[in-house]
């Protein structure tokens, strides 16, 4: 299954929780990512077309899959592919996987 953040959610996603923004990381995770991950073997998330992605949005959307929804990084690596055709957005792919790993480390430490 393919999800385009810009087309299926918002081209200006920002914020962590619904109190910050209706286009926040928690809403993207719960409304788009989670149903897709639970119902499909493979989920491809495209970053193309977004204005930008703040760390609060990314951490809650992707790190939150581990912290809140209890996915493991290995499960996500097997199911989730994040991609972009825009060079300016490539850095975010690395950041997303860092947030996922960090959330797993925080869980273990807690």
């Amino acid at each position, binding site marked *: 299954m393919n999800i385009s953040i810009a087309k299926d959610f918002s081209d200006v996603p920002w914020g962590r929780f619904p109190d910050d923004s209706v286009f926040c990381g928690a809403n993207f995770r719960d409304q788009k990512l989670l149903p897709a991950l639970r119902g499909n073997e493979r989920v491809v998330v495209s970053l193309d077309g977004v204005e*930008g*992605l703040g*760390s609060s949005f990314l*951490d809650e959307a992707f790190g939150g899959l581990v912290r809140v929804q209890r996915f493991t990084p290995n499960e996500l690596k097997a199911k989730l592919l994040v991609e972009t055709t825009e060079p300016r957005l490539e850095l975010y792919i690395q950041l997303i996987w860092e947030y996922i790993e960090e959330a797993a480390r925080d869980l273990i430490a807690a």
Partner: protein
Amino acid sequence: MKKPDREQDRWRIDQQPHRLELRNKAKRRRRHRNKHRNDVRGQAAPLLVNRHNPEQRQPKNRKVDIHLHERIDLEENYERTITDLTNVRRAVANGVNIPDLDFSRLGYISPSAALLLASEVDSWKAAIKGRRGRLRAKTDTWTPSVKKLLCQMGFFELLGMKRPEDPGIPINTTFLPFIRRNVTDARTSAGEMAKELRKQIESVAGVEIVKQLLFEGLSEAITNVSQHAYSPTDHVRDWWMSGAIDKGLVIVSFYDHGRTIPGTLPASKIFEKIKDRFGGWNDGEKIRAAMEVGRSSTGIEGRGKGLQNFLQIIRHYPGSRLRIFSNRGRLTVSNTPSGLVFESGVAESPLLGTLIEWQFVPIKPEEQ
């Protein structure tokens, strides 16, 4: 109209002693109220002037005109600028009427100072909700360049005042219309606002900005205000944002009236860790620590990464600068040939909120 009969009044009091008691109680209440008012006014600097008697610092009619100094900026005139703005904030807090804005002495106003000023007068306007009549400004006595800049910024429209005629003089600086949003309203519109501001800057500067950089900084600033700056019971939960282009230099400012970064940081779980690392702990160092280590006043894992996003645009454009003013602290991060240089400091007068300012020169792709 019949004059009150004093004899009759005294008789009433003699016959009904409780009336005297009620009268004395009312007198005591009045005296207490006036004493309190005088205390508050006593702290105000002379820039709050009684419009009927300029010599009198403590106006009895609770009307004050706002006079500003010759230069309002956050560089050489930081303390004086903050004092002027704090006086406006006090007037707002005390419910004082501000009938006249007198900017006739003002010869220069920087973009960020203009945003601070507009936010203070805007808060006053919101606090009185049109109860005390219209705000006036004798704009014909204002310096033409100041008038033009404030016109560009939408200062008069924001305050519900008649926009003066454009003085028609050429100036090097262009102010973009400034934006005010409440934390609640911003939930649906802030992202679009940040995008729109970027487009306006590009249109005036004639150069494309790497779009995600400004968006990251602004969206995290807005998220921080939503999560940390205000408590749900605060009357004002607004933020203000503006842009300006000065001879190719882009200045983007973001301001809130919240609890400030130093004011929220001590609640963090990582407080002790940072304190150990930096040794001292003044407001400037608190902002620096929050920027370098990551801050969370909630103590929840995963939080506190946002301030790093402020640096993205600074890292990208050589010679650019980020400045954060929050309470008494200030932090400047400059992109120099030897890398990012952090400088923190402390001011005498506290800024009652947090101002984030980005200054950068966008470079055309062929020059990169």
